[in-house]
């Protein structure tokens, strides 16, 4: 049996997807990146193989992607997370053509528009700072003394009016939230305010490349249904959320690994 | 073949033209002495007032032929007009407007004045864009008049009647070709005022004044007279038939304006128009100085029956500029 691996080394987590020749996901994992991400990626990779009972030799091709992609010497191919994300998204959706991809990562915010053939046509990324990214949500959760996973619950239990968050800069937003709390605003209201402030930022960014259906929304924060609702309202369109939002990029890398492997086989 | 092409494209066209013009001038002005007669209906100012010239200017015949009553003009006698035009066109067709750039003795003469001015080191003058647009219409008015006046000599105009015989060959009467060119055979007899009648007097005085302007103008402004020349207007009507073409590939043009700087006629479109392929404008005399001054490979071209015989090249440009004194 031949398998292909895509390893996405992001700023907060390492995502691994293994596919078979039919391009089906047969195993996947999400682990924290930690400090030594080379060691941690290999550990995560090996433990996934162990868990799923896959022989290392059966993995015929590895493609790495994400910020740490170039440092993974074990990879046969490196690919930028933008391309990998586009490829993964295109394959994940079966009922139509994905035209726009929105991805929120640990430290960045990406918008990709796909052309008719599903290739990456244009894309935008946030500049230098972490405003509106996974890290931002973590800060919010920490400040409200809750878990990131709980933000969605808070969002939907709001009774009353949401708070307005003006700053998108992580540092300023933090002090803004603290003063909102001091002024007696509810946690729920603040969370909704935060979601809308992120959603607005996403909408502004994404409009630079044009928004077209189907819109694919992935990355860890896409699991937050409250945020999804806010983005849908800001864009006034429905979003497609994959089953496991974190692994689309790794899946794309695995697909690219397969393609590269087959191409090499032709030339060999 | 390629070497030959390169050689041609590197040619200093100004020098070639200078000698060619002298050659053509001799034929046009002294052709009779060499028993050369190219023929009638030439699309250039080979003026028959020169005693022993080498050909005959089409405009003279044209003015004569239109002195026919309208009914005759549209009958079989009109055929004479038609055949003469046919002859004119068949002469014209070969060289297109290059008749002006290379052959017309009056044009050549103006170029000599330009050379003289350069030697003395006096600056040339130019028309502003607005003036250019206004003045360039004059040649069409002159062309209209030189056809209409003869017609009104044979057909009466309401209230005025027919024009008298003194109006004959009206353009010739004011054409510097008549007064200036015979001078080269030592014949100054055209430089007189005819007191025979009021009309004649006005015409000859006007002719003398225009001659004066011709000299003064040509000295300060390159090809001063050509700008007003009805022959140029007439030629332009037939430009589509010419075998010789000036072609521009606008995609290669940087609008640098080098060609416009070189153009003695001051044609702005040669640099600024990047749409037209066939770039000959009504004032153009097809001297091809612009082609020689263009630094962009194959941007401007001279075609003869669709075949390129001369074109702008980087190397040619560089060599010519370097070779400048």
């Amino acid at each position, binding site marked *: 049996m031949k398998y292909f691996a895509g390893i996405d080394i992001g700023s907060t987590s390492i995502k691994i997807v293994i596919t078979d020749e039919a391009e089906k996901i047969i195993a996947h994992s999400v682990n924290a990146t930690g400090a030594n991400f080379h060691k941690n990626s290999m550990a995560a990779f090996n433990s996934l193989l162990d868990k799923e009972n896959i022989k290392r030799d059966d993995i015929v091709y590895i493609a790495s992607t994400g910020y740490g992609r170039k440092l993974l010497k074990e990879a046969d191919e490196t690919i930028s997370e*933008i391309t990998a994300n586009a490829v993964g998204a295109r394959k994940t959706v079966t009922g139509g053509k994905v035209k726009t991809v929105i991805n929120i990562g640990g430290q960045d915010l990406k918008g990709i528009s796909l052309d008719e053939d599903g*290739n990456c046509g244009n*894309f935008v990324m946030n500049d230098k700072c972490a405003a509106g990214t996974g890290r931002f949500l973590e800060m919010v959760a920490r400040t409200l003394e809750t878990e990131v996973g709980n933000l969605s619950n808070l969002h939907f239990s709001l009774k009353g009016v949401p708070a307005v968050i003006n700053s998108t800069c992580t540092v300023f937003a933090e002090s803004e939230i603290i003063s909102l709390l001091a002024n007696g605003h509810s946690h729920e209201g603040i969370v909704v305010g935060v979601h809308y402030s992120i959603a607005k930022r996403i909408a502004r960014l994404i409009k630079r490349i044009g928004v077209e259906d189907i819109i694919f929304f992935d990355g860890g924060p896409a699991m937050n249904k409250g945020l999804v609702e806010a983005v849908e309202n800001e864009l006034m369109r429905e979003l497609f959320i994959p089953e496991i939002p974190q692994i689309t990029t790794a899946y794309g890398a695995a697909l690219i690994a397969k393609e590269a492997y087959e191409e090499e086989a032709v030339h060999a | 073949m390629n070497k030959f092409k390169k050689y041609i494209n590197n040619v200093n066209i100004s020098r070639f033209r200078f000698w060619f013009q002298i050659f053509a001038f001799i034929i046009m002005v002294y052709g009779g002495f060499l028993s050369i007669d190219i023929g009638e209906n030439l699309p250039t100012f080979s003026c028959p007032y020169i005693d022993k010239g080498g050909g005959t200017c089409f405009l003279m015949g044209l003015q004569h032929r239109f002195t026919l009553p309208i009914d005759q003009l549209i009958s079989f006698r009109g055929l004479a007009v038609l055949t003469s035009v046919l002859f004119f066109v068949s002469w014209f067709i070969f060289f297109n407007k290059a008749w002006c750039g290379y052959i017309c003795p009056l044009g050549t003469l103006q170029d000599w004045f330009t050379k003289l001015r350069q030697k003395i080191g006096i600056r040339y003058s130019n028309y*502003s864009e607005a003036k250019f647009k206004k003045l360039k219409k004059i040649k069409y008015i002159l062309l209209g008049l030189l056809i209409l006046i003869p017609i009104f000599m044979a057909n009466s105009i309401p209230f005025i009647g027919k024009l008298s015989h003194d109006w004959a060959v009206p353009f010739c009467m004011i054409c510097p070709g008549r007064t200036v060119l015979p001078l080269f055979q030592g014949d100054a007899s055209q430089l007189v005022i005819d007191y025979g009648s009021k009309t004649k007097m006005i015409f000859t005085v006007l002719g003398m004044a225009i001659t004066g302007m011709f000299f003064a103008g040509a000295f300060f402004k390159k090809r001063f007279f050509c700008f007003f020349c009805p022959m140029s207007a007439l030629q332009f009507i037939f430009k589509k038939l010419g075998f010789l073409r000036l072609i521009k590939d606008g995609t290669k043009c940087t*609008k*640098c304006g080098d060609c416009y*700087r070189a153009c003695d006629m001051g044609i702005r479109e040669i640099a600024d128009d990047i749409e037209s392929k066939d770039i000959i404008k009504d004032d153009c005399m097809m001297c091809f100085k612009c082609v020689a001054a263009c*630094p962009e490979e194959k941007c401007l071209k001279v075609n003869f029956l669709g075949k390129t015989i001369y074109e702008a090249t980087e190397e040619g440009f560089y060599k010519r500029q*370097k070779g400048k004194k």
Partner: protein
Amino acid sequence: MEKERFEKVRKHVRSEAALEAGDVLNKIKDNFPDNPEGMNYFYDLLSRQFSEGILPKNGKKVIGTMCVQVPDELILAVDAIPIRVCSGSFPYDNAGAEFMPAKTCSMIKAIMGLFSVENYQKKFDMLVIPTTCDQKKKTTEMLTDMGYETYSLSLPSRKDNDNSRHYWQNSVKEFAADLMKKTGKKITTSNIKKAIDLKNNARYEFRRFFNLRKKSPSVIYGKDAFLVANAYFVDEVESWTSALKNLNDELEKRVNKNFSIVNQKTPRFLFTGSPPIFPNMKIPLLVEEAGGLIAVDEVCSSSRLLYDMPAYDEGALYDMIPAIADCYLKPCTCPCFVPNEERKDKLANLIDLFNIDGVIYQSFSGCQLYEMEQKLIGNFLMEKGIPMLYIESDYSKEDTGQLSTRIEAFIESIKIKKKSDLKGKRATK
């Protein structure tokens, strides 16, 4: 005290700048295979520029220039040395940031940093700055305030009508008169003719270079091509010309031997926008390190610099000086002009001539002209179906990681497109 502190700052900035230059130069040399022998002259020259300074030591008058519109033929004619002082150095940019508004473009900050840190008041006899963008204009005044002898060369905002042409011709004439006064030398037909020929020789070699770059797959990297043009900023024309001639001869041999540095699949890019000036080779290096090739550029620090050639008709000052003037105005595609349709035409022509797969558009953050024109150019290219990557950046290296991801993704998308185009071609066959 103050003086001592100043000395210290200068020493520090200088050594940082030399370090940066050395670092970039090493990357340029070591990270790529098959550098032409002929490039060594340019590598050495630029490395000396930062270790020994940019000033010539032959006692001639030195005129500093900015932008591409300063007609240096006139400077050569009065036997002075033109040096383009537009700077690409991050340490100087940092030094300038101390007193310049935060949103100023990096190049301007670097220039201001350079002239504030270095005491060049006595070394430059004049700094000539055309009135191109607003920031350059005010730079002039700030430099005057710092004790520099400046000359503001008045450039019109339009180039498409007679008025602006004549306006500019007069500007250049005035400049010529001022130069004569400053240097005490007269401009004559013979020395201006010599200067024109000198610069035309340089232009001729530059065009040869330009044409050699058309070969696909390429015989030279874009990073080297940028350096060649950058060296012209500070080098003496004659030695620069002969060094480029050597390089051209070498490249010609490569062409004849069918030797190329990349392969058929390498995506070919056109680089346009704000000028990469050594050592700010950030974007070009990122592109070429990620497996792209900058086949040609349309920037004022390279192709725009020496491409256009003047043509005079009559060998007299009254015709030669306006001819020089025209050549710096009419074909110039600087975004300070309006309208600037010529830039689109130029890009379209380059895309054709150089077999271009995609366009990289760089804007310095804070350069409004390039930032705004980006939209127009982007729309134009979109209509033509040419992909463009727009990058807003400055001289700092902070954003390198992010940028490399974006650039790689762009290159990947073009590779995929190229592959499917090839497949399509094969299928139709």
